[in-house]
């Protein structure tokens, strides 16, 4: 039995011991413990060091708002994580934890020298210094500042865990499973509505877990809780998720949830995800998130052993742990009195209750005195002592807000403080719902809402279990009513309730120099009351400025403990009403959320889809090297033996030009345009004229944006009078279809034409080379494919090797070319058939790289490589593709804009290096005068550049200012290691300019 554990008490399993380690030492715990409760059970209070001053810190809270007790945890390789709240991490056998932000050890921390120099390290100190000497910033000051920052250490190994996600829809989502949430769930659940009830803790109950003595409906709180949970669990329409945090409240009642599934298990089941992200869309949301206890701000309020009174009560009642032997209480709220009574009943000596208020409920005072506790009303705490554990606190009387008498010291090993309660309105704030300051209770309350939600219980300053249950039930009933369902609010009878009230303060009065007081507001970030006052003094008059200047509220608890205290002090320093000062904005997530959970399934192979063609597996077997093209992966080249890319590509090019190459062209986008107005539609979309194109014939189509720049291109076949087979670039397919639909639906809805994507209906094999027809002819049935019957730029249906096919005679290589389209299921079969049949011609499979070279030799452009979104048809040298007689097409008007007809535009031209062996670098910049000083006047850049095996030299395409007028002239390409001279060739065609090879 651990020294501070009370036998049999609490909700932990006393018969199931668990061992874990903290800084290498084994800690005895019980099943159901958190790391924090287990450490406290063993009398360990010193758990961490603060961010800036490295002050020793203990466990402050019992919840997810914990700012101090953050630990690193690990459960094996790749499973280390920093900054885990010891107050939330459940223990299991084998868990390892370590303290953070200390070196060499938690008890001996060199960084604590910062604390001695705290006067220098005031708010915003770094803005004022480290500027001289100038050169010291990069090398000395900045690395020093950065090294001092940060809390835990980053993981350094890849996380092996798996994360999941779901979409979910429900009638009512209830956030928070305390009294209000349970009452709302009972009401909504009994009405038949579909309900999701979530709570961040490992079990439902909320504050009831810490208040077992209250009686509801004649049962003690925990028996009632058991019965209620049993009833809810039995409802098919209610889904309960514990260890689940509502992280953010998004548009139209979508709430993000993060569910922790395995972090509490010693041995998670195989294939179990660690966490799951839920995107819940609820018709109604009930926010029953309760309230957080607020610290009091006084000198030395951060020493280990100083903790929230409510937290001590939770450790006692829920975990059966006493947080000390002799405690002292300082409070401005009744609730701490009850905590004191509970501790005293459990055997902890309570030396004093100091209350800042002059008037306190006499029954509390009488009870305290009857229990032998010294009571000091209208008093303050002016200091504490003890470095690694508090040993005493100093108390002084207060009159009119000032210390009015001598102080005395109260010995204690634990200080329980309570500065009142702050409603948790984070999620409500995410909706941009407005908050209103309740001056009586000194809390912000939800005001105007923007979403379909209800706030219930302590979240809107309803205190006491009886009222909270009623409020929750009413919220549940209101939600049910909004759904159009009937269901009365469930009613409860409560006895032994502990309601209470209190006051909210700025920093407590002191008899010392407030400028010397170490009175903390934001514990983790070491923001003190005096820092807020300094910020205001320096002109930071907006609460956002105060926050950013001091970093108050920017630590991992995101201001849950510090916001209101900071606000009270800022308001006092500014001499402005709290409501005029206002609150900083709460932002998602409610508590820090694992990246892995947000990424979900989208990791490794599933980070993004890799689309593969039906022929991809063959290419993989043959050892192809792939490259990504949009979402597809395409074979780039097929190396043989030890070939590198250039050797492979030279071989593939040569084979294709001399005999026969085969290429998987399946990825090209395909759109079938069908209807009586198909030709009119094509005329309006594409620059080219389509009216005279005969069925069975093809044409190169050029598509512009309305801004006149080239967007896409492709060969388009007219299958029948009313049916076009449009091809697009691989990456452009979805964009082009969307653009076409846009014009069709919204600009020309009168046209009788429809568009269907057939990209994946067809697998496409391109055959190119002088032997292409020889290979194909014996396989084709139902079609004469001789040059006379089926000339270049033809299309027809036939069968190829018995497979139904749509055959195109087109070429992107300048060689005799066919593209065989077959239904996708036959793609691989077709490919293998052609491969077998092509052996007699030494058929050569080639990839995208060879395709690029072959087309460049012919001067054919690739959209996105030779054009870049700023290139017009004239710039690209393809104004022949414009139907000059057409009154209009998409982009036509823009081509007449002043800058698009101005001289000096960059035009696509051919470029031949003077040294034929030199292959220019794609992207290299071109100048007229390589000797000019930097910055140089650049004329353009190289868009495509290759070694041409067919020509025995390098070739390149480039966009160059007034390029075509430079035909035959030299330009220069200054590279880091020398200048390359090249000659402009107005035409981009390098190979077979007459096109004779196409006509075989």
């Amino acid at each position, binding site marked *: 039995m651990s020294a501070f554990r009370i036998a049999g008490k609490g909700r932990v399993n006393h018969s199931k011991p668990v061992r874990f380690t903290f800084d290498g030492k084994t800690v005895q715990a019980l099943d159901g413990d958190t790391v924090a409760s287990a450490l406290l059970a063993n009398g360990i209070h010193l758990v961490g060091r603060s961010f800036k001053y490295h002050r020793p810190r203990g466990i402050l809270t019992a919840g997810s708002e914990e700012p101090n007790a953050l630990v690193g945890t690990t459960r094996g390789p790749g499973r280390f994580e920093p900054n885990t709240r010891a107050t939330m991490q459940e223990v299991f056998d084998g868990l390892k934890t370590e303290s953070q932000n200390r070196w060499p050890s938690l008890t001996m921390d060199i960084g604590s020298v910062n604390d001695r120099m705290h006067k220098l390290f005031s708010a915003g100190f770094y803005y004022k210094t480290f500027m001289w000497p100038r050169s010291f910033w990069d090398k000395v000051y900045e690395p020093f500042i950065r090294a001092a920052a940060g809390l835990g250490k980053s993981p350094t190994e890849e996380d092996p865990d798996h994360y999941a996600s779901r979409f979910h829809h429900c009638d009512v989502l209830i956030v928070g499973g305390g009294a209000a949430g349970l009452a709302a769930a009972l009401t909504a659940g009994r009405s038949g509505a579909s309900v999701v009830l979530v709570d961040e803790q490992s079990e439902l109950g909320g504050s009831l877990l810490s208040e077992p003595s209250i009686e509801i409906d004649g049962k003690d709180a925990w028996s009632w809780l058991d019965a209620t949970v049993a009833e809810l669990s039995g409802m098919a329409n209610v889904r309960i998720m514990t260890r689940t945090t509502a992280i953010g409240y998004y548009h139209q009642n979508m709430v993000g949830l993060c569910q922790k599934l395995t972090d509490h298990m010693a041995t998670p089941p195989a294939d179990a995800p660690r966490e799951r992200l839920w*995107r819940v869309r609820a018709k109604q949301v009930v926010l029953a998130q309760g309230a957080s206890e607020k610290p009091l701000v006084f000198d030395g309020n951060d020493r280990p052993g100083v903790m929230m009174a409510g937290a001590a009560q939770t450790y006692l009642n829920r975990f059966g742990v006493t947080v000390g032997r002799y405690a002292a209480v300082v409070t401005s709220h009744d609730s701490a009195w009850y905590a004191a009574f509970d501790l005293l009943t459990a055997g902890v000596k309570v030396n004093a209750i100091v209350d800042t208020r002059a008037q306190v409920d006499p029954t509390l005072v009488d009870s305290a005195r009857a229990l032998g506790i010294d009571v000091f009303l209208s008093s303050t705490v002016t200091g504490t002592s003890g470095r690694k554990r508090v040993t005493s606190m100093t108390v002084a009387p207060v009159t009119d807000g000032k210390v009015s008498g001598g102080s005395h010291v109260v010995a204690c090993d634990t200080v329980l403080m309570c500065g009142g309660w702050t409603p948790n309105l984070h999620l409500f704030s995410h909706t941009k719902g407005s908050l209103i300051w309740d001056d009586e209770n000194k809390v912000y309350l939800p005001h105007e809402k923007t979403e379909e939600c209800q706030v219930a219980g302590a979240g809107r300053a309803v205190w006491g279990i009886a009222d909270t249950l009623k409020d929750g039930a009413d919220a549940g009933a209101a939600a049910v009513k909004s759904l159009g369902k009937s269901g009365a609010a469930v009613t409860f009878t409560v006895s032994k309730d502990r309601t209470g009230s209190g006051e909210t303060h700025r920093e407590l009065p002191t008899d010392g120099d407030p400028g010397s007081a170490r009175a903390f507001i934001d514990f983790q970030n070491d923001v003190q009351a005096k820092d807020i006052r300094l910020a205001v003094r320096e002109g930071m008059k907006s609460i956002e400025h105060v926050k950013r200047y001091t970093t108050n509220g920017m630590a991992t608890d995101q201001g849950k403990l510090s916001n209101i205290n900071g606000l009270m002090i800022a308001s006092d320093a500014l001499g402005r009403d709290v409501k005029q000062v206002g609150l900083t904005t709460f932002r998602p997530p409610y508590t820090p959320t694992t990246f892995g959970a947000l990424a979900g399934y989208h990791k490794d192979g599933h980070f993004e889809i890799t689309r593969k063609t039906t022929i991809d597996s063959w290419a993989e077997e043959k050892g192809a090297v792939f490259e990504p093209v949009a979402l597809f992966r395409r074979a780039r080249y097929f190396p043989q033996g030890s070939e590198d890319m250039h050797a492979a590509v030279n071989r593939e090019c040569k084979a294709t030009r001399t005999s026969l190459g085969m290429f998987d062209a399946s990825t090209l986008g395909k759109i079938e345009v069908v209807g009586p107005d198909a030709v009119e539609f094509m005329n309006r979309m594409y620059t080219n004229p389509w009216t005279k194109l005969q069925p069975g014939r093809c044409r190169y189509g050029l598509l512009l944006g309305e801004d006149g720049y080239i967007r896409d291109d492709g060969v388009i076949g007219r299958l029948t009078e009313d049916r076009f087979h449009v091809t697009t670039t691989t990456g452009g397919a979805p964009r082009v279809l969307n653009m076409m639909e846009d014009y069709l639906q919204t600009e020309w809805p009168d046209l009788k034409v429809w568009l269907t994507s057939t990209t994946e209906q067809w697998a496409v094999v391109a055959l190119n080379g002088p032997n292409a027809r020889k290979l194909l002819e014996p396989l084709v049935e139902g079609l004469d494919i001789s040059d006379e019957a089926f000339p270049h730029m033809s299309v027809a249906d036939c069968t190829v090797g018995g497979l139904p096919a749509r055959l195109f005679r087109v070429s992107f290589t300048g060689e005799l070319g066919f593209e065989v389209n077959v239904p996708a299921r036959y793609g691989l079969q077709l490919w293998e058939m052609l491969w077998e049949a092509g052996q007699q011609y030494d058929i050569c499979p080639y990839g995208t790289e060879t395709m690029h070279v072959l087309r460049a030799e012919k001067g054919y452009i690739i959209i996105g490589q030779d054009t870049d979104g700023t290139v017009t048809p004239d710039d690209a040298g393809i104004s022949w593709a414009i139907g000059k007689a057409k009154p209009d097409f998409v982009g036509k*008007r823009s081509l007449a804009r002043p800058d698009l007809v101005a001289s000096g535009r960059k035009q696509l031209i051919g470029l031949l290096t003077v040294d034929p062996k030199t292959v220019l670098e794609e992207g290299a910049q071109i100048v007229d005068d390589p000797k000019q000083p930097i910055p140089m006047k650049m004329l353009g850049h190289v868009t495509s550049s290759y070694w041409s095996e067919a020509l025995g030299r390098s070739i390149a395409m480039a966009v160059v200012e007034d390029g075509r007028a430079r035909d035959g002239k030299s330009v220069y390409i200054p590279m880091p290691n020398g200048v390359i001279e090249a000659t402009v060739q107005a035409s981009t065609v390098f190979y077979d300019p007459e096109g004779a090879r196409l006509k075989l």
Partner: protein
Amino acid sequence: MLLIHCPYCDKELPELEFAYAGEAHIARPVDPSALSDDEWRDFLFIRSNPRGTHFERWRHIHGCGRFFNAARDTVTDKFLTTYPAGEARPDISKLTGSKA
């Protein structure tokens, strides 16, 4: 993630099924070549970008595929109404602002 009423499907559906398509009621001129450079610029580029009610286009791309129009408050992101493409701009003063 917005919840959007598709006027064709007549259902409230998640934004993931939809693609935003810019400001609505900017019709492509019948005869673009008749426009001055300034008028053409206005068509291409000038947008009202209001802080408040915005008439805009969406496409139910992963649903019925239709482009439609919406009036949405750009400050709250709430939809006032959605309506089929081609319908006239609704009178906003008559919309309650509750939901479409």
